[in-house]
């Protein structure tokens, strides 16, 4: 079924067993993002230690795509250097906006490659990006905060 392209096993797994879905008590930055067209919401906490993402935790409501996407993100980015995380971020956004013309680099994106099918469903791209935009926003806040410290 065509739909299986969108809803890959990995996605449904992350949806049913989301990773790091419990807001941590401590964080460098906390953000709240909303997808106004469907009402999906996410809170995301981020900690950066010595230029490395030491923790991401989150809570939220939303569809399987938005929930799985943020769950995958946490698995993928925790432990990465911030520069490397940004490069993965750019890869992922490019994949989402590709309208299905790009297949993505699995070496870079790992499980996130499973979201490639989303790029053929324009209305769902925002779902997949919700957590990623929240992460980007939080990382900017965390870094400007660390500069102030």
């Amino acid at each position, binding site marked *: *079924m*065509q*739909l299986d392209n*969108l*809803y890959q096993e990995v996605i*449904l797994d992350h949806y049913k067993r989301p990773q790091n879905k419990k807001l941590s008590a401590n964080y460098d930055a906390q953000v709240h993002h909303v997808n106004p*067209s*469907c*009402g*999906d*919401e996410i809170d995301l906490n981020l900690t950066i230690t010595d230029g490395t993402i030491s923790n991401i935790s989150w809570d939220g*409501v*939303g*569809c*399987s*795509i*938005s929930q799985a996407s943020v769950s995958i993100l946490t698995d993928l980015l925790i432990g990465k250097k911030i520069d490397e995380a940004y490069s993965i971020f750019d890869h992922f956004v490019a994949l989402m906006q590709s309208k299905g013309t790009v297949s993505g680099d699995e070496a870079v994106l790992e499980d996130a490659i499973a979201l490639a099918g989303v790029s053929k*469903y324009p209305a*769902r791209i925002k*779902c997949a990006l919700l957590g990623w935009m929240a992460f980007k926003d939080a990382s900017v806040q965390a870094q400007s905060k660390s500069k102030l410290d």
Partner: protein
Amino acid sequence: MTFDPLVIRKDFPIFERSIRDGKRLVYLDSGATSQKPVVVIEAESNFYRNHNAAAHRGAHQLAEEATEALESAREVVANFLGGAVDEIVFTKHSTEALNLLAYSIGNSPVGNRFHLQAGDEIVVSEMEHHANLIPWQQLAKRTGAVLKWFEVTPDGRLDLSNIDGVITNRTKIVALTHQSNVLGTINPLTDLVKRTHQVGAIFILDACQSVPHMPVNVGALDIDFLVFSGHKAVGPTGVGVLWGRANLLDELPPFLFGGSMIESVTMTDATWAPAPRKFEPGVPNMAQIVGLGSALNYLTAIGMQKIHNHEIAITEYAISKLQEIQDLKIVGPVDMNLRGGAVSFTLGDIHPHDLGQFLDNSGIAVRTGHHCAWPLTRKMGVPATTRASFYLYNTLADIDVLFDGVRDAQKYFG
């Protein structure tokens, strides 16, 4: 003429196409926008092909014909609603019509019956579409008026247990929806309108979800203003209607300023033409207005009461079928005496977006989300719902496809 949706569907070219690799289009999203019959599409293109010119501006034959086409459509709309011709103002959609009212009221000087001051009250409800909520929020902020509202009961009706406490002597405006675009609830208006007039306020009806679906007569309802959108009533996009009582339109200051709405203009000042012209500056959305006239003629020829009966039958069937499904919860009343043909529901833990996507893959178009009524979905205790909404071209077979689709989705995501 017997009512046969299978015959009616033949008038709508979009049903000749297929969805997602050859599936039949099961369009259950008419609450968002309706499909268009070929007569409406051709009314618009005929206007461009044969009569296009700036109406009301020019003494040449094309301009005469354009004016005639425009004003005939105004007559059609007036007859459709039971109003007078000069009581019909064309806008781009109901959203603009509601903003027109809010801004024009905000423009009313001291002494004008519409003038608002701090402490005056505006009444809406928790089930309003954003288009009938935010303009009033903003008007309240600009004028110092207080926004009040009727609450919604757990089963999705207006809580009218305290009408006199909500609509008071300080109330100047009551703006309510006729039928909720989420719950399907049809609000009982008689007591509300009576109380509104008792305290000297005006009653504004958001009829977006009623005018396309049932007979609506402004005289019988005794209301003061009504708005609806053409695109939800088998008409073109880009055209809406404001109806207002003649004496009220007369006193209401204009909203948009420009050509053709004036009586006289100097560099520093201007005076206004009589309504409806005073509310229609600029070269009008002529082709769309003409298309709307054709749309209402199309609906009238079929019969609004027949359309309503058909939708009630479909809705009743849909509700009974959907209720068979485990974990499916209807959000809104299930009593057919209280509702029209928009059915929102939740399905256990399956997110409406995922359900909608799955149904789409089977050719079924539904809407998911908060349906531009965020305070309402919040009040109903759900983050979002899936909505199936029906119209004259839907069949019982469409409902069966929906039923199967929902059950298959449960298996897929289960």
